[in-house]
């Protein structure tokens, strides 16, 4: 009971400070007061932070439907919101070091998201879609036009696209452009190949060179992938495999931070692991790469992957400052 009363008082004080802060008239004395109050007890600081977070979130209230009247104020505010969005998009720029044709496309309206090695992050997009970026991946987005446009600069991403028949969602991967309305699918770009595995809905793949209309004519698309299929593309060929939904999901297990290998050669397993590692694993002898391995590994287990390999295979792990080497066990 006493606690509740106390909490109520703390909330009131925090709310007072936040409202005061946003009045724009906070005096130097008041600033000191806020600091002192926050430092007095951890609950104070926590409450102040919570209040600020609520304040920020409440700014997103009713953002989607535009107000029907355009009073000078509404107009002003919308202009500001728009300029905020523009500025937000304008200040982000590619940080990819290698020269890339896609680089040229980057303009002021694009926003870039990228993950470091070993990092997996999900980004919410303005239209309600979500993109999960796998290790060492980068995308650019530009939602300012008629289409929702994304560039996959490198790596792998899972797209959960919010349905909007009026706005095509397109992903330019360089050679190919993938176009959808609302669906779930995974795209992985490596040096030579592009792999698209579809969990849900219908995905159209076409050469990027082709002009992209604002509508998708599914019957005219070069390649159509339905749910449960995986398309692999490289410069000259394409392979479409109809697979079970289980296999499609297996391609997307990275989102859960899980690797599942079923009688795969060690070389492939190592390549996969290395995508997530700064300290790469190497094989002293290429023959070792032919050893077969099955199992489920969790990314977050980190180096326990190494112990697992040691336990399962006739190999020994040798650690060096910059890399890790697997050697044959005598």
């Amino acid at each position, binding site marked *: 009971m006493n606690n509740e009363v106390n909490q*109520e008082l703390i*909330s*009131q004080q*925090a*709310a*007072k400070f*936040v*409202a*005061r*802060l*946003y*009045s*724009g008239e*906070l005096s130097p004395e008041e*600033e000191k007061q806020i600091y002192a109050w926050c430092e007095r007890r951890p609950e104070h600081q926590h409450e102040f932070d*919570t*209040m600020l977070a*609520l*304040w920020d*979130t*409440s*700014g*997103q*209230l009713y953002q989607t439907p535009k107000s029907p009247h355009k009073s000078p*104020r*509404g107009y002003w*505010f919308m*202009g*500001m919101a728009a*300029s*905020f969005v523009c*500025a937000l998009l*304008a*200040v*982000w*720029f*590619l*940080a990819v070091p290698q020269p890339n044709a896609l680089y040229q496309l980057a303009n*002021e309206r694009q926003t*870039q*998201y990228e*993950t*470091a*090695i*070993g*990092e*997996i*992050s*999900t*980004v*919410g997009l303005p239209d309600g879609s*979500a993109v999960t970026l796998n290790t060492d991946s980068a995308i650019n987005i530009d939602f300012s036009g008629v289409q929702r446009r994304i560039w996959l600069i490198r790596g792998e991403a899972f797209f959960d696209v919010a349905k909007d028949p009026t706005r095509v969602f397109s992903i330019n991967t360089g050679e190919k452009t993938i176009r959808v309305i609302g669906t779930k699918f995974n795209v992985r770009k490596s040096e030579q190949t592009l792999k698209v595995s579809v969990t849900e809905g219908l995905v159209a793949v076409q050469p990027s060179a082709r002009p992209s209309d604002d509508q998708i004519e599914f019957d005219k698309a070069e390649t159509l992938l339905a749910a449960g299929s995986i398309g692999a593309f490289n410069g000259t060929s394409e392979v479409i495999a109809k697979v079970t939904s289980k296999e499609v999901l297996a391609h997307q297990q990275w989102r859960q*931070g899980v690797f599942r290998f079923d009688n795969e050669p060690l070389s492939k397993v190592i390549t996969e692991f290395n995508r997530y*590692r*700064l*300290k790469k694993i190497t094989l002293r002898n290429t023959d070792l790469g032919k050893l077969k391995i099955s199992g489920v590994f969790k*990314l*977050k287990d*980190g*180096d326990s992957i190494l112990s697992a390999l040691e336990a399962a295979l006739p190999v020994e792990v040798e650690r060096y400052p910059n890399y890790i080497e697997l050697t044959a066990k005598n």
Partner: protein
Amino acid sequence: MKVIHLNRAKKQTLAGNKKCQLVEQLYAEYGSALRRFIRVRSRLNEGDCDDVMQEVYERLLKLEGLQQKLAGRMDTVRNYLFQIASHILIDRDRRAKVRCKDNHISDHDTAIFSSIFSPERALQNRKQLRQIEMALAEIKTSHKQAFMLNRIEGMSYREISDSLGVSVSTVEKYISAALVVIRSKVSPE
């Protein structure tokens, strides 16, 4: 995620110079208040504060028709500055979360699965928005009006005081009362 700023060295046109003067003037007048706001809002050190101040400055320079926009009254202009700064700060926080600053690679240099800005988090945000919407229904009308005019319409406290016919300090009280109600209805994370 790394971000590089474009257009930092944009050529100044004649109009640009005028704009520059205007922004300088703004900073002379509201600079210290803006800095205090940034400091308290996000607890940044002086260097980061400088960055944000600089970003606000650049954003102002990029705006079309700045002069007309800033022709309003003092509090309107100040409110405008603070809103730009808020957006920048929110954006910074969000970026920091996505990057999982400084600790996405552990000491052991191992791969770590980090899902900082996870779907769960986005869901949490949406859930919170809904909770706030629900909470609004429980707030006294006048308090709710003041809160919404500020948070949704972006009006300054003085503008709200004019349209509601109460004093500025009352507006502040209304808004903080609304916040308290919202806080009580939103489940903690």
